[in-house]
C-alpha cells in the first residue's frame, strides 16, 4: 500500500454501522439521564451535582470522540497526542475556578 501517502488504512470494523447506531442510542440515553437528573436534583446545590453532570458530559464526549471521530480505531500515539494536552485545560479550569471563587470573596 505504499502507492499513495496514506499507508495501511487503520482498520474500520465491518460492523461500523451497527456501532454508530449503538453510540447514538447511548448518547441519546445519556442526554435523557442528564435532563432527568437535572429535574430530580433541582433543589440541591452542591459541587457533587456539578461533578456528576461534568462526568456525564465527559462520558458523552468519550463516545463522540471514540466512535464518531474514529479515535478508537486510531494508533495509540495519535490518541495520546490529542488527549494528553487536554490535561492543561483541566489544570487551567481548576485554577480558574479557585481564582473565580477568590475574586467573588474579595469583591
Amino acid at each position, binding site marked *: 500500500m505504499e502507492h499513495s501517502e496514506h499507508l495501511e488504512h*487503520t482498520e474500520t470494523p465491518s460492523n461500523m454501522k451497527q456501532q454508530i447506531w449503538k453510540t*447514538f442510542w447511548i448518547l441519546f440515553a445519556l442526554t435523557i439521564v442528564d435532563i432527568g437528573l437535572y429535574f430530580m436534583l433541582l433543589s440541591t446545590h452542591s459541587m457533587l451535582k456539578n461533578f456528576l453532570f461534568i462526568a456525564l458530559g465527559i462520558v458523552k464526549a468519550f463516545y*463522540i470522540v471514540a466512535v464518531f471521530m474514529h479515535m478508537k480505531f486510531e*494508533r495509540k500515539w495519535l490518541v495520546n497526542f490529542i488527549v494528553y494536552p487536554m490535561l492543561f485545560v483541566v489544570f487551567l*479550569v481548576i485554577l480558574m475556578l479557585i481564582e473565580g471563587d477568590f475574586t467573588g470573596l474579595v469583591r
Partner: protein
Amino acid sequence: MANSTTLTTGKQNIWGGGKSPFSVSYGKLMMWIFLLSDAFTFSSLLTAYGFIRYSFPSSQPNEIVKPMSHVSDQFVEEMQHTGLFSTEHWPLPELVFNHFPFLHGIHLPLFFVSLMTFVLIFSSVTMVLAVEAGHRMAKKEVANYMVLTILGGAAFLGCQAWEWTQFITEGATLHGNPFGPTAFAALFFIVTGFHGFHVFSGVVLNVIIYINVLAGTYEKRGHYEMVEKVGLYWHFVDLVWVFVFTFFYLI
C-alpha cells in the same frame, strides 16, 4: 521518545520515517491538530465563563415554579420580585431558558435545548454514516447522508436563532439583562455565538463537500477522505456543544 531504542528491527518500527507513525494522511493529521487547538480556544472561553460564574454566588433553589405550570407574561418581573433574579447572584438556567416554540405561557425548562442537542447529535450520526458510506465508495449514500447532515446543521442554527431572539426580546443584551449579573447574558452570547459560528462554517463546508460529492470529485480521486476530514470537524462541533450544554444549562 517512543520505542526506538538501539537495535530495533527495521520494518516494524512505526517511527522509523518514510511513513506516517499514526498511519493517517497529512490532511487528517492536520485536521486533528487544528481541532486540538480549537478545543483550546473553546476552553479559554469556557474557562472565562467558569471564572466569572464562580465569582458569583449561586441562586436560591427554585421552589415556586414547577415544570409544565402556567407562566404569565410578567414572568421575569415576578422572578425579580421573588429574588430569584438578581444582579447579586447567578440565575438558575431553568428559569431563563424555559420557552418552547408555539407553547407560549408554559414553563418548559430545558426542553428546547434538549431538542437542539438531539438535532445536533442526530446530524453527527448522519455525518458519520456518510463517512462510512464513503469507505464503501457508495456515492449516492454519501450524498444522501450529507443532505441530512446539512439539514440537521441548518435546523440547529434555526433553533439557536429562535432561542437568541427569545432571549433578546426578554431584555438580554451584551451589557445587561434582567436575569442576573451583566456577564450572564454576555457570556451566553459569546460562547453560543462562537459555537454557532463553528456550526455555520461546518454547514458551509458540508455544502461544499456535498457539491463535490455530486460532481464526482472524490470518486475520481479514489477515496472519500475529504468527507472524513470535514466529518471530524462536524463531530468536534457536536462535542463542544455537549460541554456548552452541560455548563450553560445544567450547572
